[in-house]
């Protein structure tokens, strides 16, 4: 008893109980990106496909200027507005993928962690099989075989997130399934369904929610990687695709680095924000757990 008071005291000092300014800054950035992604066509942005050829400035690409903040690409298209539109597919795919992963993987994980037995054995084996492929390899394999649109690419990335999410949900559930309050619920006659919904889920959901942000970061990066290699949504504007366009020829990268670097910046800031916010949330909830 007293030993815990000693060890917990110094921990209290290191980990503050606030989410902090950085967290909210990151959330704001992600929120801003989401806003732009949703309302891009309604915002006063230049058309991402229009050609802004300016005979006075010679042959494109044009360096960043007042009229084109991020410059233009080889076809004289505005990199700034393309970067904004790029958020659309990147974030949508990231969000859809992690949602699907959580719905399927989370449910499977909670069920197998709670009931154990053969359900657990089957789903755990399924998880390991999925995890036996390096994820990018599996993603390339599957996307190469399908008609690549927003839905299918999201589904492929969602499939990839099932196993990691499922395993975490299972581990979190296992942690709680044998706690006395679950036993207590069973002995007052609660049904399994009720126990899962009322006793397990609230405990599993909160730590998992911070993982959702981290998972979304992973999905956004994965989509970027696919797009970079040419396996994401066909004919869509995505950050990965923009970066690929700016770096496919050494000459382009050398002479007009802005074409690749501005989308890299956007992608980096977004992934950093998701990671940071997720990490803050995780430590925040972990602290709550230990002080219980």
């Amino acid at each position: 008893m007293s030993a815990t008071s000693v060890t917990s005291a110094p921990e209290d000092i290191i980990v503050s109980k606030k989410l902090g300014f950085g967290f909210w800054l990151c959330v704001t950035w992600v929120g801003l990106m989401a806003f732009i992604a949703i309302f891009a066509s309604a915002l006063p942005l230049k058309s991402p496909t229009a050609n802004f050829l300016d005979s006075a400035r010679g042959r494109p690409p044009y360096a960043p200027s007042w009229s084109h903040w991020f410059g233009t690409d080889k076809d004289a298209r505005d990199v700034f507005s393309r970067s904004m539109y790029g958020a659309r597919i990147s974030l949508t795919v990231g969000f859809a993928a992690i949602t699907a992963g959580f719905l399927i993987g989370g449910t499977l994980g909670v069920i197998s962690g709670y009931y154990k037995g053969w359900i657990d054995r089957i789903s755990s084996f399924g998880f390991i099989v999925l995890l036996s492929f390096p994820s990018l390899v599996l993603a390339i394999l599957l996307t190469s075989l399908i008609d690549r649109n927003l839905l299918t690419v999201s589904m492929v990335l969602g499939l990839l997130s099932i196993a990691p999410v499922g395993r975490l949900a299972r581990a979190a559930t296992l942690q709680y399934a044998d706690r006395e309050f679950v036993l207590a619920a069973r002995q007052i006659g609660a049904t399994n369904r009720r126990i899962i919904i009322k006793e397990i889920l609230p405990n599993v959901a909160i730590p998992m929610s911070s993982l959702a942000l981290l998972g979304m970061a992973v999905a956004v990066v994965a989509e970027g990687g696919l797009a970079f290699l040419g396996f994401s949504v066909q004919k869509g504007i995505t950050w990965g695709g923009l970066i690929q366009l700016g770096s496919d020829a050494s000459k382009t990268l050398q002479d007009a680095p802005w074409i690749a670097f501005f989308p890299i910046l956007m992608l980096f800031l977004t992934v950093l924000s998701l990671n940071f916010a997720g990490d803050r949330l995780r430590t925040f909830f972990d602290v709550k757990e230990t002080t219980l």
Partner: protein
Amino acid sequence: MRYYVQRVALAILLLLAVSMLTFGALNILGDPLFNILGPVAGDVNNPDSIKMIALAKKEFSLDRSLPVRYFIWLSDFVRGDFGVTFSSTGQPPVSGVVSERLPRTISLVFLAQMFAVVVSIPWAIIAAARAGKISDRISTINAFFLVAMPNFAIAVILKFVFSLKLGWTPITYVADDPLRSRLFQLLLPALTIGLPVAAVYQRLLRSDLITTLQQDFILLARTKGLSKTRILFVHALRPSLFSFITVVGLNTGALIGGSIVAETVFRIPGIGSTLVESIFRNDFPVVLAIVMIVASGFVVINLLVDFAYTLIDPRVRR
């Protein structure tokens, strides 16, 4: 012993499941006939096409049922016969292509993994020893930045800075160069995929070390009068490595994925870039072979990691 047998059995089972999934996906979602013949496969009114279709079906056993084809392919595969590639320049065996290119990818992944492990362990130890101090906070922020940087972006940046602006490293990989310069050419690609992974390792090991350092047995070690360095290296490090080595194993997958990107950007003819090219060329046997080889390698590495686990944790030994 029992433990090792169980783990090997599981690995074999996994490889079977992986091969079925890959074979199934390529045959059900894809169209092998189209892959072989191209547009001719759809031209069922032309008698020539029909003849070619029939021939191809016979040649590649496509007239048999899927499970039969799977077993034919599997028995060939385990004997090292990966089929032939659908290339315009004749039909070289896939095994030749693979055996030429696989070593490059393996050395790339190995270099990256070495780099990540060698960098992350001391980095994590120093950070954990100074947990909460300014220097630790700065290193944590650095790690954050690296983790948030996708490897294709790092590839582009490194290529821009070191190849294009500074001109330190060549732009392309030349397979005929002597070993030393080829290794040098693998340096940037290895950094590309190794850097973010090193940051992942550092963050994990640092936090595990900090947890370990709060354990009672560390306090006991202090009351023995041992030095801080000895406590860190002898007492804290080993019990903190459990999840580290698991993650090293799992991240081999990320490194393999990263090598696809790095090989593409730095134009290295490894199996990663070959996979991408083959997909665009609809070269079905190569795709199948590469995915299988990569997945098998990954499964074997994770098996080895599990065995390494028993070396550092006596409680797992039976």
